[in-house]
């Protein structure tokens, strides 16, 4: 099953690649207001990209409840003024520096979930990130991450070295575990290193022969994957990559990571699950309103996501980007024109399969009586319900309780980011 599927996908990918040379068509496909019928053929291999905003993003200034006077009362110095908010539905709106995402919202490829978070009350970055990545709030001893457990339980795609990739120097908690997963610090440097291409090829061949002839067990399987990956990348040639459709990724680690993810997707390298993270969200001091610290981070996020969508063109039809952050921030601004550690936050879901153009999740409001511990936005959507929905409806995961042990994901609680 898996082999025939893979050959199928690869040849289909080639066809797409030649199709993809028409930038006008792609631009239209990516930003048109209609939704093309998802193809059931080669294009249908789904891909999930998880983007972790480390440091706890202020959900209230990302997806702004500008329709609530309490928002303005609690944040006299850092609220986004009504006139600057990019309205979404009359009550919520985008931070102005996220305005670039509005076309994706309008074409229903972007949804937001508000008041989402962890059932665990911790306000420690360390613990909360740990729980969000292990997928087991309150349980520290979980050895692996939920993305890795997904890979363990859905073995259909196990056959490519680029199936699960984290972009960064070390494998993050979310991908730790027994299923093969790669941490790539720099796609261009992946593989054997040598000063000249000829020397590198020779070294690669020599090691390939060594392992093909003498390795046993897991060493044998992993080395085969490794050399297959090197071959794939040689074909892709990351040094020559040009983003399509004039996509303009911002400089910096986030832009580079998402560019490399787009590259692997378009190269049909077998990518199914990708992870990247971005820091800078822990805005205790001088957070800013329409401009300032948080605004700058949001601008980078928006530019990255729009570049990614534009670059992917119609490949976005099979891709879902899910943002996450360990918790939200206090409703009320603090004495330093910033916000302290809170509880629920907002997350974004972007991509072709997304049931977008809506702010999802039950909104508990900002009334102090409804707040968590009297101060923070209450969690009405357990993050596992959102993650489980994406795994089930996008990647086709079946055994959700094995991926989130101790939790019984219930489709009735899914926030509805993707169509059933």
């Amino acid at each position: 099953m898996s082999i025939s599927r893979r050959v199928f996908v690869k040849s289909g990918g080639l066809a797409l690649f030649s199709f993809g040379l028409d930038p006008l068509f792609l631009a239209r496909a990516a930003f048109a207001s209609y939704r093309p019928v998802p193809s059931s053929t080669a294009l249908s291999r789904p891909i999930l990209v998880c983007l972790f905003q480390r440091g706890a993003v202020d959900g209230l200034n990302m997806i702004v409840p500008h329709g609530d006077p309490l928002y303005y009362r609690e944040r006299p110095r850092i609220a986004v003024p009504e006139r600057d908010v990019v309205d979404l539905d009359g009550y919520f709106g985008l931070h102005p520096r996220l305005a670039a995402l509005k076309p994706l919202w309008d074409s229903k490829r972007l949804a937001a979930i508000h008041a989402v978070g962890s059932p665990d009350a911790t306000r420690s970055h360390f613990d909360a990130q740990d729980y969000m990545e292990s997928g087991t709030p309150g349980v520290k001893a979980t050895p692996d991450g939920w993305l890795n457990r997904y890979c363990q339980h859905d073995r259909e795609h196990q056959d490519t070295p680029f199936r699960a990739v984290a972009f960064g120097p070390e494998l993050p908690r979310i991908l730790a575990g027994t299923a093969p997963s790669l941490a790539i610090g720099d796609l261009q440097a992946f593989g054997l290193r040598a000063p000249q291409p000829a020397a590198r090829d020779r070294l690669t061949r020599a090691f390939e022969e060594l392992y093909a002839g003498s390795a046993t067990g897991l060493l044998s399987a992993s080395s085969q994957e490794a050399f297959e990956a090197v071959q794939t990348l040689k074909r892709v040639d990351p040094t020559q990559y040009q983003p399509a459709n004039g996509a303009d990724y911002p400089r910096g680690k986030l832009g580079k990571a998402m560019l490399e993810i787009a590259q692997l997707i378009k190269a049909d390298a077998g990518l199914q699950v990708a992870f990247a993270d971005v820091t800078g969200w822990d805005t205790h001091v001088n957070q800013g309103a329409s401009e300032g610290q948080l605004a700058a981070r949001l601008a980078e996020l928006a530019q990255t996501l729009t570049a990614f969508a534009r670059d992917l063109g119609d490949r976005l039809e099979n891709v879902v980007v899910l943002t996450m952050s360990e918790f939200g921030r206090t409703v009320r601004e603090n004495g330093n024109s910033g916000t302290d550690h809170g509880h629920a936050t907002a997350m974004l879901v972007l991509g072709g399969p997304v049931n977008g153009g809506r702010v999802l999740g039950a909104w508990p409001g900002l009334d102090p009586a409804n707040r968590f511990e009297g101060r923070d936005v209450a969690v009405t959507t357990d993050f596992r319900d959102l993650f489980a929905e994406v795994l089930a409806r996008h990647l086709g995961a079946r055994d959700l309780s094995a991926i989130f042990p101790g939790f019984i994901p219930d489709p009735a609680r899914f926030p509805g980011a993707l169509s059933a």
Partner: protein
Amino acid sequence: MKSLVLRLLAIVAAWPPAVGAQPAAPLQSPLTPRDSAWHALNRLAYGPRPGEIERVAAGGVLRWIDAQLAPDKIDDETVAKREREFDVLKYDRGDLARLYAEVQRARQERKRMGEIAADKPDDSPVAMKGRRFAAQFQQLAVVRAALSERQLYEVMVDFWTNHFNVYFAKGADRFLTPDYVEHTIRPHAMGRFEDLLIATAKSPAMLFYLDNWESVAPGAALPFPLSARRRGGQGVRTGINENYARELLELHTLGVDGGYGQHDVIDVARIFTGWSIRRPQQGADFEFHDWAHDTGDKQVLDIEFERGHGMDEGIRLLKLLANHPATTHHISRQLCQRFVNDDPPDGCVDDAVAAWQRSRGDIREVLRAIFHGPDFWAAANVRAKVKTPLEFVVSAARAVDAEPDTTPRLAQVVARLGEPLYLHVAPDGYPEREEAWVNSGALLDRMNAAVALAAGRLPGASVSPDSVVPATADPERLIASIDAGILGGTMSDNTRRVIRNQLSDINDAVQARALAVGLAIGGPEFQRQ
């Protein structure tokens, strides 16, 4: 090095092989003395250094093992000298605590001025110093593993540091971890398990890592006003925190199937209420808070802990756990997994448990039982394990007699291969099974590290391969010395053929050696132990 040679010569002279009190080679082993030495040097040590296989084989491998079981009697001046280059060791916990407090203060100040976002890297001189110390401390582990004559001791330090895992990057553990390794783990690594367990329970690093320092009896009255800011703006937590209690039972002692329930976890947590730490400005020492301790009745594993006790009931509990049958089985199994096979044979575990009971948890006796048991020497368990990232890097350095410097370069290679030192975030430590670290990306990185090391291009390690593989233009001689010196005679025909082919068009003897050694260390045989 010289002193070791002399010592071994002395041992050989004093107890000629075959007439000593113990057999010089393992009984019933199909292994030759050389193979036995190679096996023992891979498991009890971080791989052989040039000439070491011959020395251990000549002196008798069991004698070498017994010597390793008494590390205090092994002279280790080389490492002692190198340790003096590591500034971080000149700072005690109080010094590091004050440095940490200074970093925090400077950071708060800059945050107040709006100069940095709270999760942006802090480039102030004092913060840089803190980071330099952290990197230096990681490198120190590599230097000790590579150069120490007390190899088994260093392996056990690694084992226990991983068993009683803390996370170097969590808040105060940034400065508590060096003290933890130096003064909690190292003094007890080859002593009694009970002492080690109590030391970890009282260690500020563990109390902070698993949150026990803020575990307070429900309803306890604070003896002083505690502002919310002092707890990092997170609000004051009252009530018990179960984290340490749960991991103590599940990971440190009984094991996940050790026969305890949630009510045990809660009562263990209540027993440890009040086990806390002083503020960093005051040195962050262990401190027992009477006011925070739950003095009520408790019951753990059906044993009564009557009301009215203080810190003493925690010590009583730790002693009980240390010698509980579930604990002896759990840890014996882990030791067999480390030293014998990822799937530890039952016989090995039984031998270890019996030795544990005989010796009341003397770690040396448990190890001795494992190394003298038939499973350790069984052919099925030789080369049955894949080296961990640390084992690979250190064994490669030792194979070519590389001298690691104080820069964190080799520690960075260990990190790139997937297991950065002291940075496993979850309390279970790095897994002992090969699935956790054998993957395609890490394998390619091993090959790259091997090629760089062999060519003398790996920064941070000066290589002197002449003593193990003399440069020669004769491929057959080169291959033979690599097989004997680096692969312990395990080179496969395929590896021989591939290296021979690669050498066919290289005339420069030094270049040829670099390539051949790189292929051997990066190749499949060297990954195994």
